[in-house]
């Protein structure tokens, strides 16, 4: 009960001290904002080894297996190593992205794409999409820019169009019409024994088949089909490694799909954020948790400072002369730190969300997931911060000592813990070292609840682990405080 009276007094004093309040709440947010502006958009983005191809699919027609040809082309690109395909949602966006320089180029499959591909044929009546070095994109209703992307597009289209055209061509080989054509073109020499029957040196294949069928039209067609099938079988036997009528690159070449094909297909995401300040680029997904954790632990300095000042002013001795036990007095100092720390965390996350469009959580989170992320984790962090504050405040005899003692948990640990430079920018084993500090654990968990755009799942086991470690650290610090307490208060030799 008395602890609450003391806690209430501490909070009143803190609210009246405008400077401290400013340092606690405004400063961290200002730092996030300033650093965010300084670092620019690239910060915090995972360096992409993959080349990104932006594609706009307007294709309205259908191709192989009732799939639009554009879809097949995109799938082909996706399965190309080192290429990441990003789908742009509409033409306005595509133009905007190119105009503002956010994307170098966008491949646009226009509505007629499938129809044009369907018309492609080696036959004289079909569209011939080829030129010496590749494919006439415009003939296929594909518009794009820049050289590299064009070659990617070219190759993808070759792999789409060529099997299609070859397949269609070889189907034609079995066609009775083709055999008829063939029958006119191919003449066979007539053996002398048949000269009586056929008074010629040579006879066209067609006539021979007609002869064989004995003028029966149905039978003649049947023969022609048989020849066609024979040709197909012969060709298939001859070109065992190919399925010439396959119509897709994979079945034409009988190639097994590369097992390592990862999902490199993404949809364009606006990383400028949705916050009021339109500042929610991915960098804030790293800056906000970093500074939230860093400033939470810098409470050690502020809380400790207030405690030391009180000890020096004599009000602490006066507290000790009241019928309130020392543990209750310390609890009265401990509670406000937890409350302020929680408040600070919520303030930064809230402002981050509203102003910077910070992303917290995933749509798949359940109620209990939210509770873990927004109550349990901040509480464990604040508990650890408050324990640290109490111990350091108790150990320091004056402000100079406090500044000295707290520089380790506030500055050094923040640095090692990854709050100042993200782990991504540090050597490989930096993260191992980070786990020696409470900041490292807290940051790991806070970054987990503020997912980057690549994250689709949340590792709650990691959050639980951090929470437990932070709580344990808090209890260890409180135990040390307890042991120290007896020595400090009744200190006489």
């Amino acid at each position, binding site marked *: 009960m008395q602890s609450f009276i003391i806690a209430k007094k501490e909070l*009143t004093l803190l609210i009246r001290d405008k400077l401290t309040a400013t340092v606690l709440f405004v400063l961290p947010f200002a730092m996030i904002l300033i650093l965010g502006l300084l670092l620019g958009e690239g910060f915090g983005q995972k360096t992409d080894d993959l080349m990104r191809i932006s594609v706009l699919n307007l294709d309205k027609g259908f191709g192989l297996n009732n799939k639009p040809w554009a879809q097949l082309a995109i799938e082909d690109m996706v399965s190309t190593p080192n290429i990441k395909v990003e789908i742009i949602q509409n033409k306005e966006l595509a133009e905007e992205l190119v105009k503002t320089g956010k994307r170098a180029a966008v491949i646009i499959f226009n509505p007629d794409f499938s129809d044009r591909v369907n018309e492609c044929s080696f036959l004289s009546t079909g569209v011939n999409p080829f030129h010496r070095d590749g494919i006439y994109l415009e003939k296929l209703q594909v518009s794009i820019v820049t050289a590299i992307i064009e070659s990617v597009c070219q190759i993808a289209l070759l792999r789409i169009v060529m099997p299609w055209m070859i397949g269609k061509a070889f189907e034609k080989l079995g066609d009775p019409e083709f055999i008829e054509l063939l029958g006119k073109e191919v003449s066979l020499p007539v053996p002398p024994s048949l000269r009586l029957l056929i008074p010629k040196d040579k006879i066209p294949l067609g006539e021979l088949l007609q002869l064989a069928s004995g003028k029966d039209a149905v039978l003649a067609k049947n023969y022609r089909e048989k020849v066609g099938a024979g040709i197909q079988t012969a060709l298939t036997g001859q070109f065992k490694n190919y399925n010439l009528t396959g119509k897709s690159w994979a079945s034409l070449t009988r190639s097994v799909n590369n097992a390592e094909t990862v999902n490199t297909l993404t949809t364009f995401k606006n990383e400028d954020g949705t916050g009021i300040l339109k500042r929610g680029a991915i960098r804030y997904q790293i800056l906000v948790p970093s500074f939230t954790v860093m400033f939470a632990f810098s409470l050690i300095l502020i809380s400790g400072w207030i405690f030391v000042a009180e000890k020096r*002013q*004599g009000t602490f*001795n006066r507290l*000790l002369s009241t*019928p309130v036990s020392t543990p209750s007095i310390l609890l009265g100092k401990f509670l406000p730190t937890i409350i302020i720390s929680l408040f600070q965390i919520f303030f930064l996350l809230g402002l981050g969300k509203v102003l910077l469009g910070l992303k917290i959580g995933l749509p798949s989170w359940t109620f209990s997931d939210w509770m873990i992320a927004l109550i349990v984790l901040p509480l464990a962090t604040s508990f650890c911060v408050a324990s640290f504050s109490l111990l350091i405040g108790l150990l320091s005899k004056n402000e100079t000592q406090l500044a000295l003692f707290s520089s380790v948990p506030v500055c050094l640990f923040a640095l090692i813990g990854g709050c100042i430079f993200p782990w991504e920018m540090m050597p490989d084993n930096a993260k191992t070292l980070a786990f020696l500090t409470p900041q490292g654990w807290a940051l790991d968990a806070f970054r987990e609840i503020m997912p980057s755009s690549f994250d689709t799942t949340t590792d709650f086991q990691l959050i639980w682990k951090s929470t437990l470690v932070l709580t344990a650290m808090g209890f260890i610090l409180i135990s040390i405080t307890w042991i120290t307490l007896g020595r400090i208060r009744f200190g006489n030799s």
Partner: protein
Amino acid sequence: MTKVHSVILKIDNITKLHGQFKALNTISLEINRGEIFGLLGPNGAGKSTLLSILAGASKPSSGFTWLDGMEIQPNNLKLRARIGLVPQDFAFYEDLTAKENLVFFGQLFGMQGQLLTSKVNEILQIIGLDDEKAHQYSKYFSGGMKRRLNLGIALVHSPDILMLDEPTVGVDPQSRNRIFEAIKTINAMGTTVIYTTHYMEEAEALCDRIAILNHGEIIACNTLQNLLSLTQTTINFSIHENDMAKSRILKQKLPELKSDPLQGSYSLTSHKNSTPDIINLLVNEKIQIINLHLDSPNLEKVFLSLTGRHLRD
């Protein structure tokens, strides 16, 4: 006023060591219920050290202290409600108003509601802070007002014994009087007071009994009268040059007389009540006195005579 001589606080052979340094050396004292007890000593004598032990804020290295038969110990929380300590430093929150400070400490003593409110108002009146000042942040107070608030906080829980550690350091005479009045008021209401100071005038003006503390030891403890009787009055006088010849007679009659013949001035230390005899002698011998003044005994002189050094350096 006659006072019931029952002992409220008993100090038995207290020694306090700070490392090798003996801040208090085998102190034994008895403080009577209802008295104003003065603890006089120069800076560093050990006054604050003793008070903090009496208030249960620290432990003696050896020895005991008893409040009404209960041993005073730092972990005895019940005893704290009976003790009011006014620390040497300002011990209140400067960002709280005078009233808020009083309420806060009252609450820590378990007070609440109407009782607390009326007690707080009573104290504001005793220490002379009007309604306007009561609602001001105490950081804007003058030194005197801060001292008074510092005192007031120790009174909220109506302690049986009030201990003040140099409560008038750095205050104007007006505030000092107010503090004295407050102490007298509280004492008249039955509170025992232990008053610590290095100003002998304060001890003389306020205290029924006084202990003189020096280098952690009690060198004297008695009523003011009895302490003053430890030293004597010095009578200084000068005689007219025409009467110089008569100095022989004076020397005969007053063997302890110290003289400075060139100046014609004499001084004599004796009991205060022997002064009329000396004046009579001078008159009878028709010696013309051109200058006479008495150096009355005071605690400063007592201290000087006991320690060979001055109270204030």
